[in-house]
């Protein structure tokens, strides 16, 4: 049921898209003879000034294979961060390095996305259809990514489409009334590219489920959903050295929210998200100048009660290579946020956030890289701590067969309270301070050369979070307070290899995280939570994937293991750990200009009864089969 009464953004979106397509086609028509070396797509890559930070990337073949999944589904099987899922296809939030849902920043086109009134994104509603690369920066990195980068960040990126004209259709059908449909069309040439697409994912989600002790209860009711969306990604080369990129993504999700086992509530939620980015890039002799305007509209309609936000973002920055071993970056960013909700005084609140930031990359020796990042944010109504980060990377060994780098980083992070924290009536607290963190880590990166491809990356860290915001009762009114101090200690490990054996290509990789994230102080003498592990932070979380390619066939198996998680901070109650196994088999058929891939997924093949959040049932064994058709000319 769509009970939304907000202003519709769709006509605007269509108009923008149409204008842009027309404009681009005109440009395509004026065939230029100038040959450009390459198309400058993104801003500074994440790695450049991120020296010393632990950065992991999701295997690109897995992204390609599982593009119809959501960010929540992919991260829960392909990264060592813990994804808290309130049921299948339901609200999914992240716990990175033992922190809370609002302590990880999700970036789309370099912009933090999510609901500014909640301070978090619902990863179940983030589609991957247009995403080609996903990287995770572990630990605090507010100096580079601003608010919310306490536990880490997730960065999603699209690449330029293949040259020429490309049409891609992907259709899959699965258990519990699940269907996913995607269509994408792109044209790419020397003057730029244009890619448009749409998707529709739905599920009856009526999977049979069991109680925590394994007793059959029946089929899940009132948990059906759909997510639909339209996307556009484009780049126009204005001159030899300057380009304009426009990206927009509109999604619309309608979910009946899966209620806890034993409850029979039926609540409906409609989410609407429109994210748009317009970027201008001008390349200089040894650097670049960038301006980006972003507009974000996000809305939740929960049972007819509508809360939405509009955000205008403007970012300008330059990066410059002062010398062969010295690069700098600097810029300014401003974000105007407006939230409309019946839960605030006057039903509206506005906040301005402005950031000044600068980065430095210096290679004092051939083997040594140092980075310094600085950020100062200014937010309406309160002070934000100055957040620097300092990183180093030392090449300890290089030979013809392997290479070892040693790394370290010391960084601060902060998280601005959400607008709900500040303005909710009753209880909103205007005197809140931002949450703050300090993160220290050391690690290594060992990798083999092309003839012996393998990698082992390890990091150990400590993360202190202070002024952590908790909603606590004050009389009969709940109110947010800067109450909690948390200390996290952990180890992260990633390893993998690639190998060819005759006509079999093997690839395997493993992600693992050990996380001890403890509450440092009791709230008062009755509180038994000091020194205890935070709820929903597994001590152990990891996954292992093996992939074999034989000719046109591909078999991939992924095992996920998640340890027990406490449901409360005094650690008296827990949900048990679980292990899952997912298998994919696919077969390619290649023709001139055409290729077809048939694929079958078997998920949770051992039919494990598990819960991510207490009393939220998750599906047992389930299947998905589909075909991807590509035309490229």
């Amino acid at each position: 049921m769509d009970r939304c009464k907000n202003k519709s953004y769709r006509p605007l979106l269509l108009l923008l898209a149409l204008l842009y397509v027309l404009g681009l086609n005109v440009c395509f028509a004026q065939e230029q003879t100038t040959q450009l070396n390459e198309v400058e797509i993104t801003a500074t890559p994440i790695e450049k000034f991120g020296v010393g930070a632990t950065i992991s990337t999701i295997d690109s073949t897995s992204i390609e294979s599982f593009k119809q999944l959501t960010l929540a589904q992919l991260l829960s099987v392909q990264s060592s961060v813990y994804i808290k899922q309130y049921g299948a296809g339901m609200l999914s939030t992240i716990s990175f390095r033992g922190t809370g849902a609002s302590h990880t920043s999700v970036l789309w086109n370099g912009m933090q996305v999510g609901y500014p009134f909640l301070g978090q994104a619902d990863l179940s509603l983030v589609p991957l259809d247009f995403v080609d690369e996903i990287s995770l920066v572990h630990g605090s990195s507010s100096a580079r990514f601003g608010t919310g980068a306490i536990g880490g960040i997730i960065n999603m990126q699209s690449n330029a489409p293949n040259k020429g004209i490309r049409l891609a259709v992907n259709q899959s059908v699965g258990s519990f009334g699940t269907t996913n449909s995607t269509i994408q069309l792109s044209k790419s040439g020397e003057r730029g590219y244009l890619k448009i697409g749409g998707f529709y994912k739905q599920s009856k989600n009526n999977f049979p489920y069991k109680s925590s002790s394994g007793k059959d209860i029946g089929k899940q009711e009132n948990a059906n959903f759909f997510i639909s969306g339209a996307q556009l990604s484009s780049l126009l080369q204005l001159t030899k050295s300057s380009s304009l990129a426009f990206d927009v993504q509109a999604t619309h999700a309608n979910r009946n929210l899966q209620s806890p086992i034993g409850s029979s509530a039926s609540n409906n939620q409609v989410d609407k998200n429109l994210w748009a980015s317009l970027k201008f890039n001008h390349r200089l002799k040894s650097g670049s100048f960038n301006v980006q305007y972003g507009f974000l509209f996000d809305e939740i309609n929960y049972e007819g009660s509508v809360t939405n936000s509009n955000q205008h973002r403007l970012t300008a920055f330059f990066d410059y290579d002062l010398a062969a071993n010295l690069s700098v970056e600097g810029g300014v960013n401003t974000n105007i946020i407006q939230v409309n909700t019946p839960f605030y005084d006057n039903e509206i609140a506005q906040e301005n956030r402005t950031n000044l930031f600068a980065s430095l990359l210096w290679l004092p020796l051939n083997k040594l890289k140092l980075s310094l990042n600085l950020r100062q944010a200014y937010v309406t109504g309160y002070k934000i701590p100055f957040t620097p980060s300092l990183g180093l990377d030392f090449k300890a060994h290089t030979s013809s067969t392997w290479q070892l780098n040693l790394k370290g980083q010391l960084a601060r992070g902060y998280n601005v309270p959400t607008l709900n924290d500040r303005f909710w009536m009753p209880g909103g607290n205007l005197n809140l301070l931002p949450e703050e963190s300090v993160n220290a880590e050391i690690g290594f990166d060992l990798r083999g050369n092309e003839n012996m491809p393998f990698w082992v990356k390890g990091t150990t860290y400590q993360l202190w979070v202070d002024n952590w915001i908790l909603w606590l009762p004050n009389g009969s009114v709940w109110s947010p307070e800067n109450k909690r101090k948390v200390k996290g200690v952990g180890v992260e490990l990633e390893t993998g290899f690639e190998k060819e054996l005759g006509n079999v290509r093997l690839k395997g990789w493993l992600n693992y995280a050990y996380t001890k994230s403890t509450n440092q102080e009791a709230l008062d003498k009755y509180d038994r939570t000091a020194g205890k592990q935070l709820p929903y932070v597994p001590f152990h979380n990891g996954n292992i994937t093996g992939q074999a390619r034989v000719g046109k066939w591909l078999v991939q198996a992924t095992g996920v293991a998640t340890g027990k998680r406490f449901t409360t901070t005094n650690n008296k109650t827990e949900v048990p750990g679980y292990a899952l196994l997912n298998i994919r088999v696919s077969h390619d058929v290649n023709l001139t200009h055409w290729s077809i891939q048939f694929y079958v997924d078997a998920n949770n093949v051992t039919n494990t009864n598990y819960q991510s959040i207490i009393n939220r049932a998750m599906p047992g064994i389930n299947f998905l089969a589909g075909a991807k058709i590509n035309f490229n000319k």
Partner: protein
Amino acid sequence: MKKIKLSYVYMLALLVIASACKKDEEVPKGEFATGVIVINEGNFGDADGTVGFYDPSAKTATQDIYQKVNNETVSGTFQSIYTFDNKTYIIDQSGHKIVVVEAETFKYIATIDEGLFTPRYMTIANGKGYVSNWGDWGPNWTLPDSYIAVVDLTNFNVIKTINTDDGIEGITTINGQVYAAASYSNKVQVINPQNDAITGGYETPYGPSRFVEDGNGRLWVLCAGSLVKIDIINEKTLYSFEIAGGAKSIAVNGDGANIYYLCTPWNAPAQVFKIDNSATFAPQEALISGDNFYGLGVNPDDETIYVGRNNGADNGTIIRYNAEGTELDNFASGRFPNGFEFRK
């Protein structure tokens, strides 16, 4: 969504009334025959309500006794429990069900899951169960569909429903008559269990929610911001005291001389007051005050006061005080401890 959920918690905090204080005449035999039962509502949305057990002589607390005995959780949000004739009825308002267990062992007997909608409290009269039900929400957080479900205790079927005023809440049996408080109105309704008809009622200030009967047979009604004393023999309201807001819970000591009630006023510490049954004005000074008080009970044996405290949304703490309000000790509970049952 976190905040939406919090708003529910907050609303519940406003509306939920705790404390089940039964004068149980059973002869004890099972593991849980003698001691204190702690009702933990659970966090709304997690359906993790539990029942705990405390042995006051050994000072030991056991969590989630239903799970320990039956190797299974109830998965619900427990508004209250009711014990009669060696059966305990666990009332799960979010699962719209009542789980029936053997009172002394907590062994599962049956589930009543037809005919209930947000069940709140229960009483037994004329051999039948009477369960107050809020019914579904109406527009603007109203409860126009409230009713009492009448349960046949031989087969645990709902055999009849009685429409009531809005937000029917606390329910009790005195002298063979059933008294029910309509918390979204200003009425206490009286039901005759012989014919299950509403035979009369009392006007009260807004928001009557829970009852106790004092040593002189007077009915005390806790309302949102008032405490009302009713002579049910002569059908006359004797006193209506104004009290601190956010009234949550009421309890009475063993001989019915002292009445205790818990108020959680807006944006202020929670307060437990003590009033003697012959008082002509309400006390201004609280006996106990503190943060995050969620439930109240008084042990009829020794007048020890049990206060259930929620530590934010985390597992709670039960703080024990003597009748003068001096703190004795505390023990751990489940989430949102909202009431107690004392068994001897």
